[in-house]
């Protein structure tokens, strides 16, 4: 469903690198072979199926708005993982990077009474610092990112718990800075100029979209982003090409930490409190969105648009199955089955497209 970067690509000029090849089908294939288009088609089909089975699937207040709120969080969680998948690394500490950043934000709101944006900045800095630490350990020791971030996650589990017990207020901060409830409860439809009101889109959605756009711009247009991808594709070739590989590893992990912190902030806004359990449910969705969307686990190619669609697909499936009243045992089985079918169809479509392309 995606096109991996060829090893030889590492030697071509930076602006020829393969971010675009991950976004588009190989030359000669029909337009419908674009993996992102396939994912979008699966989402559209599922929306049609679910809304025909349950009309409440299209209920604005009770289904569509909450879906967008959750999607915003899981999109940013997916981007946090994507940032290191670009290197061919993993960040198993995404959940706890979110948790420790949420602690920092909550502490700032509770004890320093800072405005919402300033607490967010403090949390992002903490997230970036923890991410950079992970990146530095990986590049300095050469130990696999899986091991380093797993160990870091364990360490942070204990640290977060200790921080809440000794410095925090038990297991959560009660502070609600000005604007937090507005950001949580309002949609653009609550704001009108005369008789014209905005769409029923929650206020946190633009924050997640902005993060997605910035990450896409980073990997598509900036030298740093392209060098990170080149490092992910072939670190040795990247080093021989003069790319500061260690620095790029640290930067990619710092970006992952920053995005994990942003996801923690968005979840705290959605759930209404900065608490110790922020991030507990982040690990699986962090991989699901990017991998479904075509980001390679081996590094060298990322797809932000695919991550958006991947996160949306899982959200649509879960909401649809919830509305169809699946039991707890059935729910996970069917989520797995639907994902498997979606991925298989996508693969079948891509193979068909390749055959058609080779015949042409």
């Amino acid at each position, binding site marked *: 469903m995606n096109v991996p970067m060829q090893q030889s690509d590492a030697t071509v000029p930076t602006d020829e690198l393969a971010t675009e090849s991950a976004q588009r089908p190989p030359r000669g294939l029909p337009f419908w072979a674009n993996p992102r288009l396939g994912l979008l088609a699966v989402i559209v089909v599922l929306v049609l199926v679910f809304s025909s089975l349950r009309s409440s699937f299209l209920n604005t*207040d009770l*289904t569509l708005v909450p879906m967008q709120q959750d999607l915003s969080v899981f999109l940013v969680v997916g981007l946090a993982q994507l940032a290191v998948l670009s290197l061919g690394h993993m960040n198993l500490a995404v959940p706890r990077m979110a948790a420790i950043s949420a602690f920092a934000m909550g502490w700032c709101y509770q004890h320093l009474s800072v405005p919402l944006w300033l607490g967010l900045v403090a949390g992002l800095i903490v997230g970036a610092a923890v991410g950079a630490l992970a990146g530095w350990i990986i590049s300095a020791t050469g130990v696999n990112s899986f091991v380093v971030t797993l160990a870091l996650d364990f360490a942070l589990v204990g640290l977060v718990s200790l921080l*809440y017990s000794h410095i925090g207020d038990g297991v959560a901060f009660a502070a609600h800075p000005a604007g937090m409830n507005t950001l949580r*409860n309002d949609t653009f439809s609550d*704001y009108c100029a005369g008789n014209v009101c905005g769409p029923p889109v929650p206020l946190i959605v633009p924050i997640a979209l*902005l993060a997605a*756009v910035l990450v896409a*711009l980073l990997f598509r247009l900036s030298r740093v982003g392209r060098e990170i991808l080149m490092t992910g594709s072939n670190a040795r070739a990247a080093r021989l090409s003069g790319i500061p590989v260690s620095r790029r590893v640290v930067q990619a992990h710092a970006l992952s930490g920053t995005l994990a912190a942003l996801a923690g902030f968005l979840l705290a806004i959605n759930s209404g409190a900065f*608490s110790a359990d922020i991030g507990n449910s982040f690990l699986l969705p962090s991989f699901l969105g990017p991998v479904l969307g075509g980001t390679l686990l081996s590094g060298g190619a990322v797809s932000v648009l695919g991550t958006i669609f991947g996160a949306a697909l899982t959200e649509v499936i879960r909401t649809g199955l919830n*509305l169809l009243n699946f039991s707890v045992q059935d729910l996970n089985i069917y989520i797995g089955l639907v994902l498997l079918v979606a991925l298989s169809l996508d693969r079948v479509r891509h193979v068909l497209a390749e055959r058609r392309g080779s015949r042409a």
Partner: protein
Amino acid sequence: MRITRFPRGQRALGISVAVLTLAMVATGCARKSNAQGSSTSGNGLAPASVKIAYVPGGPHPYFQPWKTAMNQAKQDFSLGGVTFNETSGWDQTKQNNVLQSLAAQGYNAFGVFGVSPDNINSTFQQLEGKHLTVASLGSCPAGNTDAASFCLATDVQTAAYRAAVAAIQAMGGSGNLVHLTGNKTDSNTQRRIAGVQKAVDETGGKVKLIQTITDIDTDLQTAQKAVADLLGAKGKQINGIVNTAYNPAVASASAVKQSGLPIKVIAIDDDPTILSGIKDGSVAATVVQNPVGQAYVGGYALMKLAGGCTMKTPGQTIDSGSFVVTKSDVATYDTKRQDETKQLKTDFDSKYLSCK
């Protein structure tokens, strides 16, 4: 970051500018007045129009009696419908999704065991803002306020205190005690820890709390491993184990019995393993809760509130009862619990609800 070229990014840049503009325009616009109100005043629904959803935090044996009790409530109070949904999987985000989905399906009253006591008030506020009737059942929100109409739950601190007192009595008033409990980041666990500590403090140093083990209520296997490790390391020093979570209780009851160590085990709830342990003397006592009463009386109160009654004190916390059961009353404790349930229903009519 250094941008090397822009041509392909113009569209993406355009999107980001549009998003920002939208946000700025929105904040510049006038906000519509908030017409949403609290549903604590009720919706004037007839019982046949009231559909109650019981939503535990996730799958757990504790909630299984809710199913029988809710069907009994449906029959006794002629409710329009009841459902039980445990798909939240101990994840607050998923629980919020489940609640929204059930509301979209037409359920208009909710008995909720919130996954995260610290966040659940926000969820309650959101549901009440949509004119739905909400009660917290089995677990109250953290802090001193409850955004739901009422909380009908075990007073966990008192129950833990009673369990610890029973353990200390079984130990003969002195010795080393261990406390096994659930998720440390749950404020209810903090209350349980405080309850046990209070009982230990009252002994004036005769009883020492040598260890509190948290986070072992996720499943029975985790609890069994933790208890095996505990008995292997400190089995001979321990005189009593007080459990304030279900899985550790089942695990410690069978592990202590198998090991033959003279440890007094105080369990929680009335799992068949625990009841048989009390009968054969391997479990000194258990603290049983009242999940049937929570679901049955909770359903009754939700029906009344949806019908137009109001709580005299909105957000009031009501103890659903906890009882120490020993060998002497293991055969009769359920009668006591049924009496407590009847009393709770009477109390709602006479003390807590205001109906015109």
